[in-house]
């Protein structure tokens, strides 16, 4: 019975550019409770990274609210209270540029400790050693510079940095996309371990659905700034509903026959992903959808409907919510 740690309510983030208004995030709502991992999946232009950066404060919302532990934090990181910056942290996707190559690992890991005045210089050094040990890196790495480390090791330092202030929520923006499979396995298992030990919540962003299957408690799919489907992981993979979800799932290259069997009937992906500057009217996916329901799809934006408890879809194929009166009676 955990309270909602993070609640995002009708969040919108638009960017004004010379080509027009980019509707990067367009009325996105979701919540995360303590100890769970919400997977946010999408391709280019879906807005998943923008959601992440807005939650963490690198963008300030155009409209909508972000609540953390009940308090409204919908502002840029510079306007947020310092305490908050201990509680919400982020791991970026590119290990090459998320650590400053002109600083040593020690300096990088000490920064959050210095900013929040956690201990004196001796304490800080001890904590750095402790953090390196947690991510299974040798402690003499602290004298090295990021560019002498491999991509996987850099990402482990980035994770150590995120853990330095004992946060409650960590945003992970494609943390392993640039890494090899064996390193990815190591890092993911480490993240899961930390989550159990520290009761962390993760907002895990990725395009890799196979990874999501093994990491997330709940999965949300985004397309062109909107969430099109949300469900608990096992339910999601057992019965995906949205046509885009099915297209995504059927495009994944897998390695075994059992996995092939899991994929929905092949929906061949056609067409390019529209640019978020030019979002198609009505349902954003209708230009590529194979089961368009007629004029309604290009005219009306479908609402988010709870088709099964905990399973929501935004699609004209599913206009009616499940009948809560009926459950339990049959």
């Amino acid at each position, binding site marked *: 019975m955990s309270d909602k740690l993070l609640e995002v309510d009708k969040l919108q983030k638009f960017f004004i550019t010379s080509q027009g208004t980019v509707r990067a995030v367009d009325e996105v709502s979701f919540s995360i409770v303590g100890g769970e991992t919400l997977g946010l999946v999408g*391709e*280019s232009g879906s807005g998943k990274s923008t959601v992440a950066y807005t939650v963490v404060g690198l963008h300030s919302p155009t409209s909508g609210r972000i609540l953390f532990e009940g308090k409204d934090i919908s502002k840029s990181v510079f306007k947020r209270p310092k305490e908050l910056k201990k509680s919400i942290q982020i791991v970026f996707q590119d290990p090459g540029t998320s650590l400053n190559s002109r600083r040593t690992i020690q300096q990088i890991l000490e920064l959050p400790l210095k900013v929040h005045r956690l201990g004196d210089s001796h304490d800080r050094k001890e904590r750095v050693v402790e953090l390196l040990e947690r991510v299974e890196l040798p402690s003499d790495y602290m004298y090295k510079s990021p560019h002498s480390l*491999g*991509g*996987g*090791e850099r990402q482990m330092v980035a994770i150590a940095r995120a853990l330095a202030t004992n946060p409650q929520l960590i945003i992970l923006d494609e943390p392993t996309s640039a*890494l*090899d*499979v*064996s*390193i*990815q*396995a*190591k890092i*993911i*298992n480490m993240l899961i371990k930390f989550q159990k030990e520290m009761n962390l919540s993760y907002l895990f962003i990725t*395009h*890799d*659905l*196979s*990874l999501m*299957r*093994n*990491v997330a408690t709940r999965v949300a799919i985004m397309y062109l700034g909107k969430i099109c489907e949300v469900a608990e*992981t*096992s339910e999601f*993979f057992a019965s995906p509903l949205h046509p885009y979800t099915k*297209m*995504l799932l059927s*495009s*994944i*290259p*897998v*390695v*075994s026959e*059992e*996995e092939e069997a*899991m*994929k929905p009937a092949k929906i*061949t*992906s*056609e067409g*390019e*992903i529209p640019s978020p500057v030019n979002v198609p009217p009505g349902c954003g996916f209708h230009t590529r959808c194979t089961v368009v329901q007629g004029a309604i799809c290009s005219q009306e934006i479908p609402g988010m409907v709870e088709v099964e408890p905990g399973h929501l879809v935004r699609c004209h194929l599913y206009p009616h919510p499940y009948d809560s009166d009926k459950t339990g009676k049959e």
Partner: protein
Amino acid sequence: MTETLLSIENLHVGFKIYEGRLSVLNGVQMTVRTGERVGLVGEAGCGKTTSMKCVLKILPSPPGEITAGRILFHGKDILTMGTREMQHIRGSGISMIFQDPTAALNPVFTIGDQLTSVIKYGSRESLSKKEIYIRAVGALREVQLPDPERIFNNYPVQLSGGMRQRVSVAMALATEPELLIADEPTTSLDVTIQDQVLRLLNGLVEQHETSVIFITHSLGVVREMADWVYVMYAGNIIEGARKEELFTNPLHPYTHGLMNALPKLTGGGIAEGIPGRIPEYIDPPTGCRFHPRCPRAMEGCSKSLPPITHTSDDHDVACFLYGGESSE
């Protein structure tokens, strides 16, 4: 009756840096037959791209140098060829697609300019301007780009990532090469677009009867794209097998580890990755380079490099577990 188109034999490549000499390729062995799709799988830094750069002789040299081995194309050793001969081979003999289409296309020239110069310099015969234009637009149409005449006049920046990669494919196939080397061509693309580009590539390769070497770090992708798969680790080819055979019966402990570490759509968590890390090429392990991380390492593994054993017609593996006496 297919013949051997390309054969890499015992290729050794080193790089000279401040700390000393990196021994990157340690005796790479590979063959590609005509009309065959060969997958080359391995993690970052294992030497896949370096090997292919040697095939096209575009290895930056210094600091890289080929210290031993032969690369036979139609039976002739590329490494001993002169510049002129090599120029004939690049383009109409062997062609390449790179990972990042944005980097591979020159931003200040139109697609048309770049495509026509590829056709002009890469073709076996000399063609008139009109013929080149027709071929160029035809190539763009073949990669299913909508409105090819308009794209001909566009600049790369006006196209999306997927479209740019299709242009790269068009450029690579426009010269009708016998062998196409595709270096992680879909790694930077979205999943649904990747699916489209892979299907396109498969279709074209079949149509033109081109051989392909498809480099990737993704086992899933290689399963869709290859007939025969080589697995590479730290500068050596450690396993090679017919695709179905490899996925149902992986032999080398590294291949096992790799397949285990993949997150599966069926769930069940991710197995522990392979312990340890990729060796430093400045001081690589002696003998089999995987032995420090291998759960089944034996005494002889550190003494000499395991030779390639043919466990069956469809399966080769370089591991003492399956043959090859390790010298005492």
